[in-house]
């Protein structure tokens, strides 16, 4: 069923009786060409691009819970491509380009809003760093604009420009950045994959791998064994748990990141703002809530909830940046589990076990990467060669000294 204005009018006039569930709930078959472990944003987009771009349709997506129940449903919905390093920026710029055409591509309303993102700076040194990053972005074909204080004031007059400790001196703006309705991304990809015959199997937990002579032949699940030619792990947050079933130790720690949303307010915040002196980022949802977040809690955690010291830290950041936020009541807060990698950058790679592939380590930047992650992972699964923008996202890069460390803090995951 293709969605269109005509379809909406027709259904509206006939009592909306023609809408159907947008994916099936099939029983797993005994064998597939590709099994994708994890029915989140990245797993579903991988299935979508494998079936729609690379012509592989005999695919199962195995999801332990229900699809979209992990970080695709828990993030702060920001998309952007304001990275600096050559291993990262082309990948994220491809992702932003895919976001721009996504709704037409998969015929689903993901409410993509390119409202712009501003990274504020508060000192001369930070201005230089952002100018450098902006130039790196321009070199890769992304857009970037260095705003002075007056330009930021025109856009967001309510910020605390004269803060005694961290006065706002300007910002690096990416106008093509913005926000997306996150759940709709999972549902749109699921629908697009299901249409091509991909089996999305929910409440199916992988409990082991069938590995014979160094070749991965399939998985054990709570619904019985399923075999496949290629098995693709895509369970960021729980990557270490999944891959430990195959005896693989990863350069990853799992950490909890909290996010917050205020009560609904009238439109006040026109774009996405990030604080340059602390870790705080905020946007306003279409329902009016201020959606914001900050640092990870900083200790290993698989709990989808955090602790109060970070809540306090995030609120302090919010108050330092925009004191008006103090008048808004907090409506909800929640946590998600992040694959924090050793250099803050992700992995899309084969493993040393033939037929077993790995996608993970997205730290807290996985949502914006959803389309490119799916496309590049699909490319790897279909051709056994990395996509041209993902050649550096390898699992063994640390042993070769080819780290992609945007922040330059080294192998300390809770600092990325």
């Amino acid at each position, binding site marked *: 069923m293709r969605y269109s204005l005509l379809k909406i009018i027709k259904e509206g006039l006939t009592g909306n009786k023609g809408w159907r569930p947008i994916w099936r709930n099939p029983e797993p078959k005994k064998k597939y060409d590709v099994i994708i472990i994890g029915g989140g944003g990245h797993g579903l987009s991988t299935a979508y691009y494998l079936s729609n771009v690379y012509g592989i349709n005999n695919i199962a997506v195995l999801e332990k819970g229900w699809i979209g129940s992990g970080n695709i449903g828990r993030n702060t919905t920001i998309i952007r491509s304001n990275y600096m390093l050559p291993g990262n920026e082309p990948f994220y710029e491809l992702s932003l380009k895919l976001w721009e055409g996504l709704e037409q591509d998969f015929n689903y309303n993901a409410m993509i809003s390119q409202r712009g993102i501003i990274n504020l700076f508060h000192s001369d040194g930070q201005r230089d760093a952002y100018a450098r990053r902006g130039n790196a972005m321009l070199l890769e074909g992304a857009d970037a604009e260095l705003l002075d204080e007056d330009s930021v004031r025109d856009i967001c007059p309510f910020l605390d420009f004269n803060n005694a400790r961290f006065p706002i001196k300007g910002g690096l703006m990416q106008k093509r950045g913005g926000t997306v309705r996150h759940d709709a991304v999972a549902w749109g990809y699921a629908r697009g994959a299901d249409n091509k015959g991909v089996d999305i199997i929910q409440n199916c937990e992988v409990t082991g791998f069938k590995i014979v002579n160094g070749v991965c032949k399939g998985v054990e699940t709570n619904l019985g064994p399923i075999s496949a030619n290629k098995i693709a792990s895509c369970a960021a947050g*729980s990557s*270490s*748990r999944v891959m*430990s079933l195959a005896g693989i*130790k*990863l*350069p*990853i*720690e*799992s950490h909890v990141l909290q996010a917050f949303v205020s009560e609904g307010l009238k439109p006040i915040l026109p774009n996405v703002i990030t604080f340059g002196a602390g870790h705080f980022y905020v946007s306003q949802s279409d329902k009016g809530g201020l959606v914001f977040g900050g640092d990870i809690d*900083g*200790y*290993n*955690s*698989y*709990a989808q909830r955090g*602790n109060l*010291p970070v809540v306090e830290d995030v609120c302090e950041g919010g108050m330092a940046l925009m004191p008006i936020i103090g008048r808004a009541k907090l409506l909800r807060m929640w946590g998600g589990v992040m694959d924090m990698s*050793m250099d803050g950058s992700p992995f899309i790679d084969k493993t040393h076990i033939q037929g077993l592939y790995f996608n993970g380590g997205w730290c807290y930047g996985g949502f914006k990467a959803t389309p490119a992650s799916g496309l590049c992972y699909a490319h790897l699964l279909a051709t056994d060669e990395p996509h041209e923008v993902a050649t550096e996202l390898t699992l063994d890069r*640390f*042993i070769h000294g080819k780290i992609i460390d945007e922040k330059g803090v080294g*192998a*300390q*995951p*809770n600092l990325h």
Partner: protein
Amino acid sequence: MVINHPLLGPRDSSEFVYLGDASLMNRPNWLDKDAGQKFYTYQYLRDNPHLEHKELWFHEQGDRSWLIVTRNTSTHEILKVELAKKFFDKGG
């Protein structure tokens, strides 16, 4: 979280700095034949277990001691707190 410090009693976790897996105490010997591989494993790879995890916390806002905390990573429940020093004294 409240960490029950062996010397100072219950302290808020925000007084501490977190380093990570307690295996980081077992630094490889740089003279070993395969020291490169050992240091790679030591520095970059983690067990990252679900449930019980032994980890290093530094009491920066307190007595500046290193603690080995055994904690459940699923519930955040702290099961055991020990001074890291006694393991160093044993040479391991």
